[in-house]
């Protein structure tokens, strides 16, 4: 049978085609805007392409993608298990701040201890942040979307508050934390970076992102935990009937999702910034995660690819002003892509004729199989 559930089951699905079409539409709408502004479509998109295809450009794309992939996994995991983690933003923020605190305060530890410690602190912080929302939901039935949006702001101000504590705040004049210890950074060796002439922030965080991808896939597809979470996600009543603790599953799901978003924050800090600025506005990593999860169809490996795609757009977009094209073009493209993916999902849910058509077709196939079976049994007695 061809129906074997594999790593690429989702990518092979027809949904993949919808994603491609949505991406195409994104670029098409972007082109319309370019034409309206009197700019050259070829030049803009050409620049987008050339800025990501050089070795240096590509290394930037990977660096940019790391946190998008991991936060995308966070959101995708929540989608798979029936909750909508719109709070990945806040979990990302508390995660990176936790990693920063450890990276600053325990700076004398060797990297081999410090780095895992930073990761763990970030994941724990994200998991706690997600669990609080889960607790509010399961204990008092508070809608997780609302509380998450509020928790994003709590995380925002909490992070700014911590950044202002003397032990954490920069000794210089910068409105940010101190730099984390060099041993807490995930950067590739300087000599290696210089020799290849790649991005100065090139880091091995991508390996963590890939490992997280495989781990998430494994949890969802291969473990009893994944079975429980998915069952609760797609039919709470049947899951409860089958003896699965629904509330516990929701909490677990949000904790894991939060831990992933927190890890995303740590990877961003330890790979790129090295310190956390005092925010003046939300960074938007959580929302990027939603986009990545959507483009990746909530499939872990789809998210990996979508994260790279998103990273390429953001990095490539930042180079657009070199040819006089506003960087905001990328927002237009991304917005359009998300819009089209959303309508294709909406269509699936609302387009009754299509749905009916499909089930009728399936019924026919089933009937056919039954008839075949009956004929086999009857052995041409008629």
């Amino acid at each position, binding site marked *: 049978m061809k129906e074997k559930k594999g790593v690429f089951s989702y990518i092979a699905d027809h949904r993949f085609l919808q994603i491609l079409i949505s991406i195409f539409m994104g670029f098409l709408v972007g082109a319309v805007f370019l034409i309206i502004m009197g700019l050259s479509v070829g030049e803009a998109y050409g620049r987008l392409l050339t800025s990501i295809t050089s070795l240096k450009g590509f290394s930037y794309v990977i660096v940019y993608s790391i946190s998008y992939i991991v936060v995308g996994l966070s959101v995708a995991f929540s989608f798979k298990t029936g909750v909508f983690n719109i709070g990945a933003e806040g979990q990302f923020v508390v995660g990176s701040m936790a990693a920063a605190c450890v990276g600053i305060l325990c700076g004398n530890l060797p990297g081999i201890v410090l780095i895992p410690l930073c990761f763990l602190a970030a994941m724990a912080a994200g998991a706690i942040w997600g669990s609080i929302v889960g607790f509010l939901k399961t204990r008092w039935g508070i809608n997780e979307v609302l509380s998450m949006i509020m928790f994003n702001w709590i995380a925002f101000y909490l992070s700014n508050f911590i950044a202002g504590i003397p032990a954490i705040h920069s000794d210089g004049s910068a409105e940010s934390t101190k730099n984390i210890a060099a041993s807490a950074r995930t950067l590739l060796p300087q000599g290696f970076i210089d020799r290849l002439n790649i991005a100065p922030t090139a880091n091995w965080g991508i390996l963590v992102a890939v490992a997280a991808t495989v781990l998430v896939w494994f949890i969802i597809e*291969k473990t009893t935990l994944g079975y429980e979470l998915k069952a609760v996600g*797609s039919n709470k009543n049947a899951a409860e009937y089958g003896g699965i603790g629904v509330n516990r599953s929701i909490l677990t799901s949000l904790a894991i999702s939060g831990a992933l978003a927190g890890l995303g924050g740590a990877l961003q800090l330890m790979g790129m910034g090295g310190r956390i600025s005092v925010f003046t506005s939300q960074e938007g990593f959580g929302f990027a995660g939603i986009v990545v999860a959507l483009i990746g169809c909530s499939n872990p490996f789809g998210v990996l690819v979508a994260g790279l795609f998103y990273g390429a757009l953001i990095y490539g977009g930042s180079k657009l002003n070199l040819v006089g094209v506003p960087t905001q073009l990328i927002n237009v493209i991304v917005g359009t892509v998300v819009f089209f993916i959303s309508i294709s999902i909406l269509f699936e849910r609302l387009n009754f004729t299509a749905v009916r058509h499909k089930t009728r077709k399936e019924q026919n196939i089933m009937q056919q199989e039954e008839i075949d079976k009956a004929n086999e049994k009857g052995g041409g007695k008629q």
Partner: protein
Amino acid sequence: MSKEYVDMNTPVVEMRDIVKRFGNFTANDGIQLTVHKGEIHAILGENGAGKSTLMNQLYGLIKPTSGDILVNGKKVEMNNPKDAIDAGIGMVHQHFMLVQPFTVTENIVLGTEPRKGISLDMETARKNVVELSERYGLSIDPDAKIEDISVGMQQRVEILKALYRGADILILDEPTSSLTPQEIVELIEIMHKLAKDGKSIILITHKLKEIKESADFCTIIRLGKYIGTVDVDTVTESDLASMMVGRNVTFKVEKQEMTPGEVVLNVENLHCLDYRGVEIVKGLDLQVRRGEIVGIAGIDGNGQTELVEVITGLRKGISGKVFVNGTNVFNRSPRFGYNHGVSSIPADRQKHGLVLDFSIEDNLILQNYGKDPFSFRSILKRDAIFDHATSSIEQFDIRPGSSEKRAARTLSGGNQQKVIIAREVQNDKDLLIAVNPTRGLDVGAIEYVHKYIVDQRNKGKAVLLVSFELDEIMSLSDIIDVIFDGKIVASLPGKEADENELGLMMAGGKKS
């Protein structure tokens, strides 16, 4: 074939040698149908036999691959439902197509509104609707909004809609599937009135009792093939059933004598609330022993649903005790109850019984995914899960075969129920609770489900059967407990039960 039924008049509808193929699948293979004026003609077949396909061709929704359709003796080509409506054919679908916030009148005239100049003439419309309604005894309130009226009334609105458009031939697709018993009686009356007035009715159904009560003729389709047309008065229900499924169907459930063993389920003085917070189970006592089927007879809403939910751990009770094999499972989790011997076939198979998006193999391990042999140290063992599904599909005849990886959503209702039964029977617990286990299933599947329930009893399990179908309770139960107003008001041996007496007790009449 159908010649012996052709009388002097030209048939109003004739379908000759209808063949309909979808790709290489033949949904209708040489179907004949002849309907006369004033006739109620049933089309009988199992789910998926091709009844709806046939009617969709008559109503112009799809076109036949070959074969002729004649209306009033003239060959017609139905390209769309409008052609059918023009030819005097109306169809009432299983799922109604009404605008919820509109009134009855507005819905009926929708698309053919009478006009006065450029404005709508709703007064005339209302008058026409009232007239039609009175003529056929439909007693419809023309000003009521659809969202405020019952399903039975909505169906009448659909019938009126077809009549308003001048239909002489009415196709009713599974019209009783969502009606209460009382509404069914009224619908049959309405059908007789319509027929008397010269309307012809084509009734698509798989319910034999209704055919016997309403139809004049019955055309049987099995697996897309034409089996025959019979005069309903000359055949019995079991004749019809065997024609439909292609083998003898026994309505009488074979049951050997059993001496019940020790008590497995013992419910003592149970109280619980319903979803509105009103007390609905009011001090109920109940016992089920090994090797017996206890049937709970009662009208919906007397606490039977909540009783089962408390026993299975899905609902918290206020007070009482629920012993299963001596362990009190009252207000414990569903898993606690399961581990102490409770298995159940839930009332709503799509809500509680199955995770529709899960594959069959995953649905078959809903309670046991965490146990040997399906997992080891929290890692699922896919091979074992697959093999289990393969053997279950084989043993319980779940169709289509080799469907281990197929989503439960894509199965027919009967096969979904088989998946649940396969799971619960193989769970091999001492207590089996079955709630409306045959709702919506056709005869073949019902026979199958009943066989498995009796099998469980014969193996020495305790079975608690809750059903709104009195026939089912009476034919399966060793003991019938009548539930009324949250209490068991009578308990009598199944053999001695009398339908009328039971009905009286269910309605709160005196105890026997």
